[in-house]
């Protein structure tokens, strides 16, 4: 009789995100899951769960550390209450580098070792982390009325996260940090009266356009973020080396497919929002300049911490060299766009 190859039961891992099930980022996380399952030839299976399925959105780090969940799909800024340095991995000061510049710093400029030092040595966590998907710069967000000057945003109760919260607080806003799924209910309850989350698709899916009509693109508050994948360290180390490699390298693989998905969806949804009557603006030069000044004031306070100082020095040196090359080398894309689609851009 022909030998029947008994397929061993797959190892099932639980992966929880910090996003509500309706967020497009669940699809981004699914791309990661698909890659892991395909590459492992069925030896790994991942149960993908939305925020709150096991632990709350902001508690995924505790969850992975304790092994309540095996993998988390989140952003470092969500746990910056445990250590402020977390927000340097994606939501730090903008020296001029994009998310791609900073993700390159993570993989090639020493960022990954800093991250490991922070989580494992400084904080003693039982986790391994990886960053992936360089996010497009995050819009300044959603406002009920037009905001043009800095004085227009003073006193507004605004939702953002991480150092961006410190930044906008110093510009006179009153800042609350909430998970994405709680933004619209918070607007309805009056907890906040303006907010940013991340991108046109996510924003549209949780109904931003129902509670505010002015959408401001371009901002320095979070211009270089990426996703964070958290793995339980003990679990990872007990796995076969090839499966470990699949779990870790799939972060890099999903990064490219995530970028494509983002470009397609974010742009289409921006148009949809405009069709639905949302007024899309670019954030005023006045506010952008004030943001840079606010960063100027914030950076020295961060640098009082020796670990943060080392990270910031490393990032600054990286941006100074790399972005010089990027900007010097980059052709004027705007010129080409105007050439082929004249009169469309309103910058």
């Amino acid at each position, binding site marked *: 009789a022909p030998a029947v190859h008994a397929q061993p039961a797959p190892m099932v891992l639980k992966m929880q995100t910090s996003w509500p099930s309706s967020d497009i980022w669940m699809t981004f996380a699914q791309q990661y899951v698909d890659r892991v399952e395909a590459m492992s030839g069925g030896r790994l299976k991942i149960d993908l769960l939305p925020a709150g399925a*096991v632990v709350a959105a902001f508690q995924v780090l505790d969850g992975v550390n304790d092994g309540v969940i095996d993998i988390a799909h989140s952003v470092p800024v969500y746990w910056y209450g445990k250590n402020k340095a977390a927000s340097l991995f994606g939501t730090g000061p903008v020296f001029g580098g994009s998310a791609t510049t900073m993700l390159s710093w993570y993989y090639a400029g020493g960022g990954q070792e800093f991250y490991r030092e922070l989580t494992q040595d400084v904080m003693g966590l039982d986790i391994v982390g990886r960053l992936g998907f360089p996010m497009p710069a995050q819009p300044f967000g959603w406002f009920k009325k037009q905001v043009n000057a800095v004085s227009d945003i003073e006193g507004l109760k605004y939702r953002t996260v991480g150092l961006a919260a410190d930044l906008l607080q110093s510009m006179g806003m009153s800042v609350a940090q909430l998970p994405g799924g709680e933004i619209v209910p918070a607007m309805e309850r009056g907890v906040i009266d303006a907010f940013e989350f991340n991108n046109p698709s996510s924003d549209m899916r949780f109904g931003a356009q129902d509670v505010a009509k002015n959408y401001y693109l371009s901002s320095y508050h979070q211009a270089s973020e990426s996703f964070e994948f958290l793995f339980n360290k003990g679990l990872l180390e007990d796995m076969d080396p090839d499966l470990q490699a699949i779990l870790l390298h799939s972060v890099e693989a999903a990064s490219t497919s995530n970028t494509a998905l983002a470009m397609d969806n974010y742009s289409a949804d921006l148009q949809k929002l405009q069709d639905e009557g949302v007024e899309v603006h670019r954030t005023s030069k006045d506010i952008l300049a004030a943001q840079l000044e606010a960063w100027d004031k914030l950076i020295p306070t961060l640098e009082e911490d020796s670990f943060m100082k080392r990270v910031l020095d490393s990032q600054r040196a990286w941006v100074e060299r790399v972005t010089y090359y990027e900007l010097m080398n980059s052709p004027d894309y705007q010129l080409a766009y105007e050439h082929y689609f004249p009169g469309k851009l309103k910058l």
Partner: protein
Amino acid sequence: MIDAHVALMMLGIFIILVFLGFPVAFTLMALGIGFGYYAYFDDGRMWRAFNRLAEDSDTLTSAITWFEGAFNNRIFDLFINQTYTVMSNEVLTAVPLFLFMGYIVERSNIVNRLFSTLNVAARNIPGSLGVAALVTCALFATATGIVGAVVTLMGMLALPAMLKARYDKSFAAGIICAGGTLGILIPPSIMLIVYAAASGVSIVRLYAGALLPGLTLVGLYLLYIVCRSMLQPKAAPRPTKEEVPEVPLPKVLWMLATSFFPLAFLILSVLGSILFGLATPTEAASIGALGGIILAASYRALTFDRLRESVYLTVRTSAMVCWLFVGSYTFSSVFSYLGGEHVISEFVSGLDLTPLQFLLLAQLIIFLLGWPLEWSEIIIIFVPIFLPLLPLFDIDPLFFGILVALNLQTSFLTPPMAMSAYYLKGVAPPGILLTDIFKGIMPFLFMVIVSMVLMYTFPQIVFHLPDLFYGAR
């Protein structure tokens, strides 16, 4: 045995334990942890440190490491995580504040003023005493948000007054029981906050949604009182001048201005600031509590003893509600981890029900649960079992929540555990029998059912205000 069967066993054991009368919060915690230990049992993970231990380590070290391994089950971390999630739940922060407001208002001597004023103001309406009693109940129940105090206070105040005016005793008792139960429906109801926390439905949408159904029910009650008084004057005779003195209009207005309007204003400002997004429910509740304190002080009813009592009762009732959440969060996450939720939804979708049949079945079960259980247990533990089924039948959880709030009105009013009736019986004059009370309640129960049918036929009664204030979903 597959895990889904284990989940059903967990639910079964839970129900048995509830029947044995052990405090439910701890039963839930224990079952969550016990079954969670099974669900998350993972010897590779739990005894990883033990397995890595070198062969030559001494017996004591290995024993300790093994023992630590036994407690290295992730259920314990999950349990603490869920506990913290309840502790940091923003929606529930409004619960102690609304309770506090209620306790303060209860002790502010306002009921007497309110009832005598409304009596005078309504004196020319048929069934005036009954109308005044119902409006007092409704307003007071709305401000205090829970049953109990309203029924007993009114039972001591309005019931003797109505009996003295030769009201039919069942009719009089029914009015107080039904009116006193309205607090769990009309916002700012504490029950709706708890439903919001259990279901994830926005609390402000729930409040907006409950407003018209609440007013509809009050309207139906009033309609019944007035019509019955006109058709059967013997049941509700016009009060004599000695019973309700004739008071000149300016004096009536003054009485209204000092008793009715301050409380009405307090409730409206709390509710208005929530609905118009001027304040979060928590902030509005704090304003309400502060307003209640000021109101009580202005009636010279605020003593340190009363404040202290209110504080202590607030902490006890908050602990009662919130510890239930601590238990149920852990219980239900283990239950769904074991696939319990899935098996129930498979079973229900296999029944091939129409949405109406499902709705009727669900409401019937909730009605029956209302016999042995209190509203807090029903909302926190049993309603979440129905919630994942709602999408199967395309039923909005907001709509479902309001129906449940209406339904629970009945559970306070029907035997065997008709709390409203028992409270009233406890303070009523000896001549009033429980059967009199139940007889009086029947027509009001009918009105509740009428309002549920109305809501089902015209869902706009629920959706109109939330859609208007916050946009259609």
